[in-house]
Structure formats: structure tokens, C-alpha cells
């Protein structure tokens, strides 16, 4: 557990707060465990009081007594509004088009928001075997938009060429004649700032930096020739109110606020 000095904001806190703000006005979120949990729970207390988290495990409308440790934790089942089978969850809820925002992570992301979670190296003989898609391919194809939260922003993760495209954005799908439902990745939130794109045909662009970070630094940390918005905003630092809610109400035991 990290002991946080008053006034110091950890990377987890920063990413959670920034991601929570992006959830304003969103209704249904498909979230994994960790930073997405923190972001969503904080959003519920701030910008999106009626947000509903849908978990890959089948839980809708969770009312957890503790911060869940996995997407299938018993604490999200007890007292939930509904628990669905996986065919219903993936078929009706996700593929059916009921998810506004899906949260995804990745080992590698490219300029179009395509993701690799399968291998580093060659698929047949990988240097590192990663866990694979899980439900990521379906979250990307069927959510209206996807947010990616990446702790590390460096050229190996933000790469010009994926070692393997596990989870394609809509541009790759359309090139194959398959029409996905949503816009793909619209926000990438990192320790350096925020990349954004609106939808098909558009690359990720740098739209905001954290205080003290320059556009040049972000471009250096990115493995492709990153486009920069005409006006790059500075992300307002986490407010006292946001930090207090996050630290005292959302994750008082610092399960994910590492």
C-alpha cells in the first residue's frame, strides 16, 4: 500500500479522476477491474450519478459492499439488480448495443486505437504470451465508444506497428467490409495527457496534457508521428473534492489506488 503524502497525487489517482470526468452524461459502462472501477465509482459520485456498470461476468446494477477485487467478485453479486448468463450479457447487452462506454487496456495501441493483448513478438513463437482478448474484441466492436487507460506512455506501448492486432478498431473492420457498431477508441488517458479521436477515418490526436507536460514530450513518448490538436488543453489537476471522494469513499483501503 502506498502511503500518500497530503497534496501528492499518485498516478492511479490522477488517471482515475481524469477518466471519471470523461464519463459525464454516459449511462452504461462496461468496465473491468482496477482503474476503470475507480473511475466509474468516482463518476457516480460526481458527474454521472445514474451510471450503470455492466460487468463481463454478467452483473448489471451492482451495489457492492466492498470494492470488488475481480469482475466476478461475490460482493458485486450480493444485492445486484440482475445477474445474466454470458450469452445474454455478450449477446443481448453488449452486441445488442446497450453499452455507451467500454473500458479497455492493452499492451500495445496504435494510432487508430487498434489494440494488442495477445503476444509480444510473433504469434507462433512469442517472446511474451499475453492473456489474449477476453471480451475486448466484443467490447470494441459493440460499445458506442471505448476509453483506454494506460499507466505507461512510451513508444513500446504506443507503437507504430502492433506486433499483433487482437482487438481492431472500426477502421480495420471496415477495411474488411465488416461494419462495427461504435466509434472505437475515443479517449486514451495516460500519465502524460489525453489522446482523442472522434471516429472512423480519424487518428488519435493529443488534445490535452497534464500540468507541466509538453506536447513535445508526449510526441517523444509515442511510437508514431502523433498529431497534435490546434489547441492543446491543460488537464485541470484533481480537485480536493475529487481526491477526497476517491480516497475516502471509493477506495478507502487503497485496493487499486496503488
Amino acid at each position, binding site marked *: 500500500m502506498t502511503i500518500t503524502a497530503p497534496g501528492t497525487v499518485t498516478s492511479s489517482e490522477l488517471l482515475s479522476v481524469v477518466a471519471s470526468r470523461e464519463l459525464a452524461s454516459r449511462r452504461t459502462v462496461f468496465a473491468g477491474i482496477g482503474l476503470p472501477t475507480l473511475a466509474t465509482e468516482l463518476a457516480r459520485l460526481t458527474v454521472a450519478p445514474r451510471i450503470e456498470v*455492466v460487468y463481463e461476468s454478467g452483473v*448489471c*446494477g451492482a451495489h457492492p*459492499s466492498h470494492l470488488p477485487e475481480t469482475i466476478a467478485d*461475490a460482493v458485486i453479486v*450480493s444485492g445486484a439488480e440482475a445477474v445474466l448468463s454470458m450469452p445474454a450479457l455478450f449477446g443481448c*447487452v453488449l452486441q445488442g*448495443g*446497450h453499452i455507451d462506454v467500454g473500458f479497455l487496456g492493452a499492451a500495445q495501441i496504435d494510432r487508430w486505437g487498434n489494440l494488442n493483448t495477445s503476444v509480444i513478438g510473433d504469434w507462433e513463437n512469442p517472446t511474451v504470451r499475453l492473456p489474449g482478448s477476453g471480451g475486448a474484441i466484443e467490447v470494441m466492436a459493440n460499445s458506442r465508444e471505448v476509453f483506454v487507460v494506460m499507466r505507461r506512455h512510451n513508444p513500446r506501448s504506443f507503437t507504430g506497428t502492433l506486433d499483433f492486432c487482437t482487438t481492431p478498431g472500426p477502421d480495420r473492420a471496415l477495411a474488411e467490409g465488416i461494419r462495427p457498431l461504435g466509434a472505437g477508441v475515443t479517449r486514451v488517458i495516460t500519465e502524460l495527457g489525453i489522446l482523442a479521436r472522434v471516429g472512423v477515418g480519424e487518428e488519435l490526436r493529443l488534445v490535452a496534457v497534464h500540468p507541466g507536460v509538453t506536447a513535445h514530450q508526449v510526441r517523444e513518448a509515442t511510437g508514431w508521428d502523433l498529431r497534435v490538436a490546434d489547441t492543446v488543453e491543460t488537464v485541470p489537476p484533481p480537485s480536493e473534492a475529487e481526491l477526497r471522494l476517491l480516497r475516502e469513499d471509493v477506495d478507502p483501503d487503497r485496493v487499486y489506488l496503488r
Partner: protein
Amino acid sequence: MERTDTADGPSKVMSMKEAVAAFVHDGATVSIEGFTHLVPTAAGHEIIRQGRKDLTVVRMTADIVVDQMIAAGCVSRLVSSFVGNSSAGSLGELRRRIERADPAPLAFEEYSHYGMVCRYLAGSQRLPFYPLRSYGGSDLPGVNSDLRKVTSPYPGPDGEPEQIYVVPPVNPDVTIIHAQRADRRGNIQIWGLTGIQAEAVYAADKAVVVVEEIVEDEVVRSDPNRTLVPSHAVDAVVVCPRGAHPSFAQGYYDRDNDFYRAWSHISKDPERLRAWLAEWVYGTADHAEYVDKLGEDFWAGLAVGEALSEPVNYGRRL
């Protein structure tokens, strides 16, 4: 009525009048599901009262409520896999329409039960089609051009290419179902026969759920596996006790088998059918009046006993 918003979101509770006015429009495709159990009859009667026209009704078992809606002039097209009065006889109005276009024709799309189930599965899962091992050799594809074939990209058991029939999705403008209970925000719980209701709701653009009763959030949340449809898929919750009559609601009231038998006679005679609608639908302001008109003695005859489920423990770590 329970219109108060809850801590977790807006109440979706509204009156039947409001729900039908808001979500069932002239010319709409309306799915009405409930397989013998939990037939949303009261909703069908309110559609008749409000004089909806030119509806396409989608319903696996087109039965009494559909015959009534057709007789009231609400329906121009029917999509169904069984057009009969259960095992109790015929639907007089439907037969006059189809056999003699009397007093007007009725367009009819004929399927089998599983064909309809698969249309809802495709609709709810946003699939372009759903495959099923039926229809080979049937005359139905000859009269329903939406029954088509696909060649599997995997070899069949004999190593040769394999063909299979598929059906297209159905995506109604609105689906109406009846359920035992819900919370104010529309988490719907059903037990006993659950049929195709969940998929019919997910396939639709809007969903109206009529319930026997609204319960507190804690009741629903004590048993989340019992929630057949989560609130995110529901647009209106209408409280209408005994709203499934002459169908039944397990644990609430039994099926009115006498009325099913009577309907074959009522519907056989257009005059009698009109008189029945005049008295029981147009002549009642809403379903509460219909229920009162039947009288408490009548309802006592449909009373059910108690057979409570054993509880299960959803407990989590301490």
C-alpha cells in the same frame, strides 16, 4: 402512483393509458409476448380503447387478445407461428379475415415456434440472421420468402458443404410483456414459464412491461438471478393487477379456461364479438374497471395456493 424517482435513477412507472399513448403508435410493429402464461391482455385492451390502427403484431401464439385487436380494427399484419385459441377452439375473427377477407384482409407471415424464437434471438443479439435446423422440405419457404438458406463454411458430417435455413431478425418498435413484479426502475422478475420475453424485450426499440405489483428494491436485489430483464432494457413499468386475464400469473391467479372455451363461440359470431368488445373493453375505462366488473366471486374461482420457493444464500465475504 409510485412516480417518485429512486436514488439510482428515474422511476419508469406510468399508467397503462400513458404507456400505450407514449409507446404504441399507428403503423408500428408491436410484439406482444407471453406463451400462454403472462399474456399482456390488459395492454391489448388499452390499445383497442385508444383506437390504434395499422399495427403489425408479432406474437408466437396469436390467441384471444390478438383476435380481439384484429376485430377492433387495430391490426393490418400478423407475424405468428400459431394462430389458434390454445386447445380450446378457433379464433373467429382471424379466420374470417384470412379465409374470406371479411370484413377486411389480414396480411399474415407464417413461421414455426422456433423460427419465431430465432427471429427474436437475432433481433436481440443484433445479428443479420439466425440459423436453425428446421424448414427443410416444408412448403413454408414457398409462401414466406424470408425463410432463406446459408451454406455453412465448415464441411458437414459427410465432408460435403452443408446448407441450413436461417430467419431474419425481428426488431419491433415496441415489445409489451406482462410480469409478476418489478422495481420502480424496471428490473423485471418473472418465474414459472419465462418463454421468449427477455429476448422480445431486447429485440425491441422500446419496451413496456406490465406487472402484477411493484416491489421494493430490496426484494428484487435479494435475488438478482430472478431478474429476467434488467432496467436498462425497459422504458415503462405499468402496474396492472390481473392484467393477464384470461391467461394466468403463476402464484397470483389461475388461467380462466372457461373463457378460452367461451371465446370460440363469442368470436364465431361477429355480432356477439362486437357486443363483447363494447361491454368489456370500450365499456370499461381501464383494466381496474374490467376486474371489478368480473367481481370478487369470479376472482375467488381463480385463486391459487401457496408454494414458496426455498431461499438460497447470496452471502458474500464478511
